[in-house]
């Protein structure tokens, strides 16, 4: 077995695609539809053949409630690792990304938190070398 894809719920797939590609700099991988169902995945430009992130339309009331609750608690829906959290912070901020936490030192890492414009918080993590 392998992890090839993981999912995140988004309120609007077009809007999510713009954010993940234009702001975060991901690349589009899979995009096909079957009726109103749209399978849409992206992958980080640094690792385009790595694990894909499915941008799944959140039309499920149970998932919506969960998404809103963890968003309000300030909990990230997903975490991405980076080698340069400050650089990513400056770059994405210049592109309009809204951060709820600037790069902050925590035990073993520097983290930052931003909104994905589609109902989620994303944590960027730069692990401290040891």
């Amino acid at each position: 077995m392998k992890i090839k894809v993981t999912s995140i719920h988004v309120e609007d797939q077009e809007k999510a695609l713009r954010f993940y590609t234009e702001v975060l700099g991901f690349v589009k991988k899979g995009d096909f539809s079957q009726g109103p169902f749209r399978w849409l995945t992206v992958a980080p430009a640094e690792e385009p053949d790595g694990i894909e992130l499915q941008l799944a339309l959140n039309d499920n009331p149970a998932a919506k409630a969960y998404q809103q609750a963890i968003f309000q608690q300030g909990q990230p829906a997903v975490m991405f690792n980076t080698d340069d959290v400050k650089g990513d912070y400056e770059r994405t901020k210049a592109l309009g990304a809204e951060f709820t936490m600037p790069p902050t030192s925590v035990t073993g890492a520097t983290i930052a938190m931003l909104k994905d414009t589609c109902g989620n918080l994303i944590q960027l993590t730069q692990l401290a070398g040891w």
Partner: protein
Amino acid sequence: MTDRERYAPGPASGARIRKDGEKWTLVLRRELRHPPEKVWQALTDPAHLREWAPFEADGSLGAVGNTVKLTTVATPAPHVTETTVTRAEAPELLEYKWGDHDMRWELEGFGGGTRLTLWTNIGRQFIAMGAAGWHICFDVLDRLLCGAPIGRIVGGEAMKFGWQRLRAEYAKQFGSGQSQ
């Protein structure tokens, strides 16, 4: 070989696209050799839909106000949406939503048969895919109405039955703007 194995779709035909503002509509027309009453049943009765449509319905789509769960078949992740039938004028006009897609079906009797027209909105980049999928579904519907059902052909299964060729043909007919 079974009838299903022998099945191969004909050339792309009967489809056009329309743009209203930012919204694209796929318009599909198919002439069926069966009366509107019979076609109406195939469009509204869950047991009939199961034989040809790209979704399952958990109740009849045949009456205004009916609330029905539609489960898109063979998607890589479960996709269930609820719809309320907004127009049902048997056996002529049927309207409901499939997810965020408007579905408008018109049945027009002619010479003992039915001229069936479907209007459905769909993203521009997916129009040729949608046209190819519905083309195959309508072929399967026709076999069902003839009393010789070959079983639903949707999702990945459609790839085995010429879906890619149809998609390319429709993409060519609809002109540029296709992303894939």
